[in-house]
């Protein structure tokens, strides 16, 4: 189908983009890679009056080292994120599981966070890594911790006139290992359930563990019960399996064509054990 009419603005700097978005009123939308928005426009599920296209805002594509953090510009494409050596391993590895090559050439890091799809893979990773979203509006710049950013189904904490400029992802030391375990039914598919795990090891024990769950509720969820059960314990597959028994606690998974809520709870336990084991490379 053909999208409904809209007017189109193509800023080339962040300042211009912020001005364009706030000047365009209630029914304006940001266009990033378009890999989620274009289908919505074509199906006429989204009917914006103005599209603010970030495609030429080159400063938003930058990925840079900021000491304790890596700053990933919102317009960095999945393709660039996978290939940039500055990008933390868990982010790069997870991004490589997103969609297919053509979608990864256009789809952006920021777009897949701002879209806040519960089946999206990167939100759970941002949660597990305690990343900070950096937003800009006419009122200035604002930091939003990942834990506060994903508010509800397809809803982020961004105000309608706020732009996600980029994300500060903390660097974790060499004693951390990472893994993203994604269960999906066919190629190119979204996760039925996904588990992002970061594990800090010291002499065969777990110093700390961080786990983010994909598609176990309307937004990504931190598996806190598993994190405390695993921390301080042995870094062994058995210990991870028993810690992972708590993975479905405080979750609210959907039932749909890909699986029932019960099946997803089962998957969360199994995949969490696998993700922890792989992250700790035991």
């Amino acid at each position, binding site marked *: 189908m053909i999208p409904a*009419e*809209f007017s189109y603005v193509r800023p080339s700097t962040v300042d211009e983009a912020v001005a364009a978005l706030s000047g365009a009123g209630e029914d304006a939308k940001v*266009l990033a890679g*378009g890999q989620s928005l*274009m289908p919505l426009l074509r*199906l006429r599920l989204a009917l914006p009056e103005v599209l603010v296209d970030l495609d030429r805002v080159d400063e938003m594509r930058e990925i840079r080292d900021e000491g304790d953090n890596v700053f990933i510009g919102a317009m960095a494409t999945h393709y660039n994120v996978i290939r940039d050596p500055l990008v933390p391993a868990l982010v790069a590895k997870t991004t490589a599981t997103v969609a297919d090559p*053509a979608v990864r050439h*256009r789809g952006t890091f920021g777009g897949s966070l701002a879209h806040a799809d519960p089946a999206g893979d990167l939100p759970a990773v941002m949660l597990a890594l305690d990343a900070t979203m950096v937003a800009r509006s006419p009122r200035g710049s604002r930091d939003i911790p990942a834990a506060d950013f994903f508010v509800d189904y397809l809803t982020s904490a961004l105000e309608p006139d706020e732009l996600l400029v980029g994300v500060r992802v903390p660097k974790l030391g060499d004693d951390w290992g990472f893994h993203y375990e994604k269960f999906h039914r066919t190629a*190119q598919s979204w996760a039925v359930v996904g588990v992002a795990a970061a594990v800090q090891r010291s002499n065969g024990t777990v110093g700390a563990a961080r786990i983010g769950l994909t598609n176990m509720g309307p937004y990504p969820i931190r598996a806190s019960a598993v994190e405390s059960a695993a921390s301080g314990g042995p870094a062994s597959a058995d210990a991870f399996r028993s810690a992972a028994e708590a993975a479905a606690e405080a979750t609210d998974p959907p039932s749909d064509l890909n699986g029932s809520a019960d099946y997803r709870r089962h998957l969360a336990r199994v995949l969490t054990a696998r993700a922890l084991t792989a992250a700790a490379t035991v």
Partner: protein
Amino acid sequence: MPRIKVEVDGVTYEDDVEPRLLLVHYLRDRLGKVGTPIGCDTTNCGACTVLMDGLSVKSCSVLAVQADGRAITTIEGLGIDGQLHPMQQAFHEEHALQCGYCTPGMIMASLDLLRENADPSEDEIREGLEGNLCRCTGYQNIVRAVRRAADDMRGAAKEVTS
């Protein structure tokens, strides 16, 4: 209406386009390049795949205005002087199509794959083509065709450099 300047298959065009015009509709309806088909509304099928500045994109999910200043290659730009491109030839010889609807997209995605990996394994081909759906062939012959084209294209590259 925004004015765009875009190179398609080696020819530069300048046109006024409505912002909502999809790149694939621009190619088909304005330029008459109907070699690029449309198979879905959801960015899933990959039938509409073209190269934009050398990288594969689904042209149903790019606006024509976004192609302003870019170079597009479609299936119609591959053959030279009536000769099929080695990838087209390999699809033909390996019977990698039945109805042919997915073929233009498959071929463009396959070229993108070889750009990054000149000698892909069967698994790498299947992964590289995961954004392209075929309802007919069961993919076996498509994978075979890409393997064959990879061999032919590396052979040809060696001849040129030696």
